[in-house]
């Protein structure tokens, strides 16, 4: 008996599905799109941290790396910090030293070139209680003169390569014997503990690093508290710098973090839209099926069976849509997660399995609840009343709108169409919301794409500074090196060739010197430009480009780390000279996590260091092809590198992803409209027959049906534009903060008035696109058939 009842419900579900093919397809597609967006969003959120956390746990990473002045604390005092309250594990002290390594120059050079400064720690083995190093290649350093490099600091050095320790007495040579990974990035290389003293420059204080794990390290505040407890246990001034694992995690995950906010925004939009549309579909199916419900109940269906029949009609396509959405989300995640995998060096990265399971289950539950409410209403319907009432809207609704709109000097089919939404205010409100969300997503995406294009251009400076010419030796020739030909001859040669090119608009030469800045533990690259470099293309977040000696511009990362602001004065130490400089501008640049400075040649010349030009930056006249220009510079001969600045390919992927997501959401909104119009057409099929029977042409029918939602679409567009712009204004700075930078105002003000007008029409376009298909069905319907329909 129970089986028979179940069979009856199944037959009712099958019957409903076949009778309402359009709604079935709409539900499936809506769930496909929204589940896809949610899987992608959650997958990215999880994967932005998961690989780091796994590696951190496996290597028992340090929550804090604390560098101390070994002269200010005894070994006993340092050892005692392992027992400070809150410290669960500790390692060290490991002697620490910073050298300026000299590495073999490029082919054709007899000298060595200076690589970026390198922090070395003295460790007897890669293991230990905290920060267990993973040996990737070779072996651990066993004797003086051997070094194990961090994989993040290889600079083309392979096993067996030799580097010189610049700054150390006698400039000793170190042979690379291994490559290792530290999840904490606690050092750029490791040597035996006994080697550290021999590598320290005369006059510099002895430093050591201690590694700690804390009982509570879930938040930045907790880590700061742990560090404060350790610092308090040491003599005042002993701690010279600290590093939290959260900083490292943020840095490592910064490749994906900026993407997360907008994908989450899209996913939320998709989620809300799918719920609204499902509610609309089911409510519509119940309303359209009043007579059918009445008939089902009159032949013995219980309220529970009616509920099951209507919920089943939704869940079948919803399940199919959810499963398809999981597939879609995984496919869309491939290009983004591929990049993240590269950042972490973890090979491949996929959407976690639990995300693939949890999202469709959650979406299914959401849809089930959305379907249940109108289905319960269906179950409670009185059979006689349902059969008698049919699907007619409540009498009186929308009459005033008809009367008012009928007075407008517009074709009658248009005014009848525009008045239709007032007959179903609830459905109109849901449809309006779905179109608002879809149009807002379009507005948001248009702004986001424009902003990201500017971000990509700002980071690459491909527009202002499309060509860079590198001089042999890269400007970092050590005193021992002897470039061939001389630096002056190189400059004369390059400038002669640049002047000879008709496409040259302007050029400047730059060099980079490593300097110390108060508040930043590591050295900071300072790039100096000779002559006017205001055209070079760094976008200003605040302040202005330097105009006089003694002025510098810095990125947001620099200001964040140092706690300085535009207008402040800082002291940089280049060589042995301290140079006070004033920060006059905050530039948009994320290189080296924003830890860099830009200034004039004269400012850096005060250091007394020999400034050797490294790179020529070339701006081109409008219409000049950078590739052709670069080819023309081949006359410079071997040793000179000519590169073309182009936007990072990742941004192309990102903008493509945005386009894909917004297309999905626009399709979802369009399907929502289609569903509404189909419901409306079903309800008014008899009226359509009357219209046609009194002379309404197919074209007039299409106009009327499109106008059922066109007014709603126009209103939605007007609401959606400010909503989309507001979302853009909110999300973009969040993305920038995730990337550790501010944004120039011009990257936010990307909407032109004409564009906003066009975007306001997006709602109408979505509504019209969604309505056209059912409108053409209505126009083609045979009049006699429509008149016979109930």
């Amino acid at each position, binding site marked *: 008996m129970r089986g028979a009842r179940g069979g009856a419900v199944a037959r009712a579900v099958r019957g409903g599905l076949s009778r309402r093919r359009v709604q079935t397809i709409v539900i499936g597609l809506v769930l496909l799109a929204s589940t896809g967006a949610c899987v992608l969003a959650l997958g990215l959120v999880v994967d932005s941290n998961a690989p780091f956390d796994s590696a951190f746990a496996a290597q028992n990473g340090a929550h804090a790396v604390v560098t101390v002045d070994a002269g200010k604390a005894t070994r006993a005092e340092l050892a005692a910090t392992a027992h400070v309250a809150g410290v669960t594990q500790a390692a060290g002290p490991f002697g620490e030293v910073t050298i300026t390594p000299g590495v073999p120059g490029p082919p054709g050079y007899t000298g060595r070139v200076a690589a970026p400064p390198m922090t070395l720690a003295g460790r007897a083995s890669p293991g230990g209680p905290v920060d267990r190093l993973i040996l990737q290649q070779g072996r651990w350093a066993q004797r003086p003169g051997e070094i194990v490099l961090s994989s993040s600091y290889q600079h083309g050095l392979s096993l067996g390569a030799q580097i010189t320790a610049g700054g150390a007495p006698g400039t000793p040579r170190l042979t690379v014997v291994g490559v290792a990974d530290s999840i904490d990035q606690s050092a750029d290389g490791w040597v035996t503990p006994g080697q550290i003293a021999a590598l320290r420059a005369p006059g510099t204080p002895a430093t050591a690093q201690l590694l700690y794990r804390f009982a509570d390290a879930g938040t930045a505040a907790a880590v700061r508290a742990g560090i404060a407890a350790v610092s308090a246990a040491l003599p005042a001034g002993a701690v010279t710098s600290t590093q939290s694992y959260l900083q490292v995690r943020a840095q490592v995950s910064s490749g994906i973090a900026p993407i997360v906010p907008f994908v989450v925004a899209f996913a939320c939009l998709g989620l809300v839209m799918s719920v609204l549309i499902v509610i609309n579909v089911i409510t519509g199916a119940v309303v359209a099926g009043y007579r059918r419900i009445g008939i089902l109940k009159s032949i013995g269906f219980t309220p529970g069976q009616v509920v099951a029949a209507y919920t089943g009609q939704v869940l079948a396509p919803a399940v199919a849509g959810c499963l398809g959405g999981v597939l879609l989300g995984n496919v869309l995640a491939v290009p983004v997660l591929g990049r993240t995998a590269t950042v972490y060096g973890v090979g491949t990265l996929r959407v976690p399995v639990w995300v693939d399971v949890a999202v469709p289950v959650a979406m299914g539950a959401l849809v089930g609840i959305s379907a249940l409410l109108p289905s319960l209403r269906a179950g409670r319907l009185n059979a006689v009343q349902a059969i008698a009432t049919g699907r*007619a809207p409540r*009498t009186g609704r*929308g*009459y005033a709108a*008809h*009367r008012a709109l*009928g007075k407008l000097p517009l*074709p*009658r*089919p248009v005014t*009848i169409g525009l*008045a239709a939404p007032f*007959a179903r205010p609830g459905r109109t409100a849901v449809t309006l919301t779905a179109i608002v969300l879809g149009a807002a997503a379009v507005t948001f995406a248009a702004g986001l794409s424009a902003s990201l294009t500017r971000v990509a251009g700002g980071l690459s400076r491909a527009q202002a500074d499309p060509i860079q010419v590198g001089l042999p030796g890269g400007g970092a020739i050590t005193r021992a090196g002897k470039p061939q030909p001389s630096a002056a001859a190189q400059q004369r040669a390059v400038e002669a060739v640049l002047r000879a090119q008709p496409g040259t608009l302007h050029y400047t030469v730059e060099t980079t010197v490593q300097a110390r800045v108060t508040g930043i533990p590591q050295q900071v690259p300072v790039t100096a430009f000779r002559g006017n470099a205001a055209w070079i293309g760094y976008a200003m977040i605040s302040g202005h480009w330097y105009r006089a000696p003694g002025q510098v511009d810095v990125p947001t990362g620099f200001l964040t780390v140092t706690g300085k602001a535009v207008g402040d004065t800082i002291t940089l130490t280049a060589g042995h000279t301290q140079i006070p400089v004033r920060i006059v501008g905050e530039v948009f640049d994320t290189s080296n996590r924003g830890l860099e400075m830009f200034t004039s040649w004269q400012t850096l010349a005060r250091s007394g260091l020999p400034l050797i030009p490294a790179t020529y930056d070339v701006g081109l006249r409008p219409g000049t092809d950078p590739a052709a220009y670069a080819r023309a510079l081949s006359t410079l001969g071997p040793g000179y590198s000519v590169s073309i600045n182009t936007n990072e390919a990742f941004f192309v992927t990102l903008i493509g992803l945005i386009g894909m997501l917004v297309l999905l959401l626009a399709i979802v909104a369009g399907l929502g409209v289609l569903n509404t119009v189909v419901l409306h057409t079903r309800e008014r099929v*008899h*009226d359509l*027959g*009357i*219209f*046609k*029977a*009194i*002379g*309404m*042409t*197919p*074209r*007039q029918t299409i106009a009327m049906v499109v106008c059922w939602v066109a007014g709603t679409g126009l209103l939605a567009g007007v609401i959606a534009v400010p909503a989309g712009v507001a979302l853009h204004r909110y999300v973009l700075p969040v993305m920038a903060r995730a990337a550790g930078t501010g944004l120039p105002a011009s990257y936010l003000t990307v909407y032109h008035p004409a564009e906003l007008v066009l975007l306001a029409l997006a709602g109408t376009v979505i509504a019209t696109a969604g309505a056209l298909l059912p409108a053409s069905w209505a*126009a*083609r319907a*045979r*009049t*006699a058939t429509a*008149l016979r329909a109930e």
Partner: protein
Amino acid sequence: MDALIRLDEVTKRYDNDAAPAVDGVSMQIAPGEAVAVMGPSGSGKSTLLNMIAGLDRPTSGTVTVAGERIDRLSETGVARFWRRRVGMIFQFFNLLDDLTVLDNVLLPAQLAGVPRGKAQARADELLAALRIGKYRQAYPARLSGGQRQRVAIARALVNRPAMLLADEPTGALDSANGELIGGLLLDLNRSGQTLVVVTHNPDLAARYAHRTIEVADGRIAADAGVGARR
């Protein structure tokens, strides 16, 4: 006879396996005639009327109205044909509930592009003639069946059609209202309006039509009074 309506071997099938609803019917109706099409339920009389009206297409055969092959017209062509030639009234009135009486009557004229003032004047004239002028701003739901059918007649006549087709026009009315509507149709025919009425009511056919076509099983079983005028 100079036919206004001419059907030649018209067959209509809704289902290939089932018997045809209309089976090889040929007939002609002259201008100014009042014709009653009679037959039992399911005999095919409404299908016949729908094909004359252009609301439905024959499976085979031809339907010519005022010299125009309407079975070959596109949907747009049918709509334009309707505006010029046909006024139709239905058993259940088929008024649009969300439009006032006046708007219902005006609608065919507005769809045909008749200037608003001219259409309004014609609608007022018809509503007054049918004695429902005071209900011009009322909604159909507030009217009685007879009043609704008079609104439907006004709507059918607003574009001065060549023929008036009526499908069971008194079928949903009580006898008094049925008499009233029948009298109105008779008056219209006397003023020269061609009238085709589908009915299963022999009294209505006898009193208000001067020609009766009996349909059974999709075929013309009898055709009495061809060419007669009252």
